[in-house]
């Protein structure tokens, strides 16, 4: 049997395979002593889990906790406000990925900024900045960069091209975040609350595409230091079912290990060239604020000081707002992102807050937990 593109799309979504795994898991789960709570860190997994109704296929002693994993969802208002202010500068074209279009800041979203006359462009790839810069030589192009480890090397590659081609009118506002730091924070903050939320995280479903870049090695500390096992899983429903089956087997056999389900793309080391690019251009910030979660040490990246001439955060520091902004009072995104509440528990879920008029960030991206529940949960 040779591999074809069709395999990669259809066979990893095959209904019979999903059902077969459901059976295996049901049998195995009978041998579990306790309920196991699996946190899927990444919203891509949340999306798959909700779309294919996987919780209904699993026995009652296996539960999902939806994690924080969407760089769009966790973008705090402070950063959106930066983008908003930058986009209003006379000779600036603000460029960002399409996912950012609706995320509300305190003055509205970037889409609102555009309807109020600023030049904001939503692109599919950071490379489009090169073309925009070339076509608009008198303008300053600011790339508002977002994303986890998955997306960071692409920003680095753009900066690399800008430097090599000696382009003078592209700048960067960096909002890249990293996954292991937030996983640590989630374990620690939940452990503090363990009395009130007696559903601690037992295992993690490791984000697929973060590890395509970073390798599985970034999760090594979790089984070793935190006694939480990790299985790096692909995004397709069959991948997720296989990963759950692997998690259950570890519990039955009394193991606590880091395993890879997504072997067709993830290795222990990951993409070294991409990692090298990240290291060349970025440093860790001391703190980065996550929407709903607050400040998390070392969880964000910034440009290294030697590239400050490209750093919009430094160049425009006099006009960028500083102070902290509170999230909406009724929004419980913070608890949802910590895996302590489910979207329907929010009093404005599906009423005041919907994908077309999101109030909190989890309703914005299609991978946000609230948006996934709204779309697939039949809970309206």
């Amino acid at each position, binding site marked *: *049997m*040779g*591999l074809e*593109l069709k*395999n*990669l*799309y259809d*066979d*990893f979504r*095959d209904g*019979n*395979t999903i*059902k*077969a*795994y459901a*059976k*295996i898991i049901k049998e195995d789960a009978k041998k579990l002593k306790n309920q196991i709570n699996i946190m899927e860190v*990444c919203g*891509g997994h949340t*999306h798959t889990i909700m779309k294919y109704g996987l919780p209904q296929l699993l026995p009652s002693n296996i539960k999902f906790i939806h994690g924080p994993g*969407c*760089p*769009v969802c966790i973008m705090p208002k402070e950063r959106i406000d930066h983008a908003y202010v930058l986009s209003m500068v006379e000779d600036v074209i603000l460029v960002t*990925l399409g*996912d950012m279009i609706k995320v509300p800041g305190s003055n509205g979203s970037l889409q609102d900024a555009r309807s109020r006359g600023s030049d904001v462009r939503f692109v*599919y*790839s*950071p*490379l*489009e900045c090169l073309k925009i810069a070339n076509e608009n030589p008198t303008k300053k192009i600011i790339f508002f960069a*977002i*994303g*986890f480890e*998955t*997306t960071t*090397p*692409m920003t680095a*590659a753009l900066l*690399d*091209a800008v430097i090599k081609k000696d382009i003078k009118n592209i700048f960067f506002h960096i909002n890249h975040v990293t996954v292991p730091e937030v996983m640590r924070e989630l374990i620690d903050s939940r452990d503090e609350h363990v009395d009130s939320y007696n559903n601690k995280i037992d295992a993690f479903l490791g*984000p*697929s*595409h*973060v590890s*395509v*870049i970073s390798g599985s090695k970034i999760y090594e500390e979790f089984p070793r230091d935190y006694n939480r096992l990790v299985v790096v899983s692909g*995004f397709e429903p*069959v991948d997720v079912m*296989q990963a759950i089956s692997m998690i259950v087997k570890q519990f039955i056999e009394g193991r606590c290990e880091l395993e890879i389900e997504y*072997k*067709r*793309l993830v290795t222990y080391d990951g*993409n070294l*060239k*991409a990692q090298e*690019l990240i290291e060349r251009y970025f440093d860790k910030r001391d703190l980065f604020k996550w929407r709903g979660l607050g400040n998390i040490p070392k969880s964000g990246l910034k440009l290294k000081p030697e590239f400050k001439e490209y750093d919009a955060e430094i160049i425009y520091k006099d006009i960028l707002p500083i102070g902290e902004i509170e999230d909406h009072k009724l929004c419980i995104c913070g608890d949802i992102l910590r895996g302590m509440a489910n979207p329907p528990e929010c009093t404005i879920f599906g009423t005041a807050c919907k994908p077309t008029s999101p109030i909190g960030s989890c309703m914005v*991206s299609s*991978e946000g937990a609230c948006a996934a529940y709204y779309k697939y949960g039949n809970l309206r």
Partner: protein
Amino acid sequence: MCLSIPSKVVKIDKENEVATVDTMGVQREASLSLMSQEDIKIGDYVLLHIGFVMNKIDEAEALDSLEIYKEIIDAMNEEDRQMAILEADECPNRGE
């Protein structure tokens, strides 16, 4: 946003580090700047993310997974068949 898509490499422009890839019949260009030149060949399956090839899909591993899936389905079907036989055997009035 990280839901990257599998595609097949149909053309490589070494000089500009760009590949033309086929995503279910749609052709487009993707940057190879995150890959080592010698790693990517025409006919390879790759993962695409915001305009870049982010990695090659390991064909042997993918086929391995598909093989495992086939086996578990086959095993399940056998079990299902036996269940069906057992159920058919079970006369509702037995023991009456």
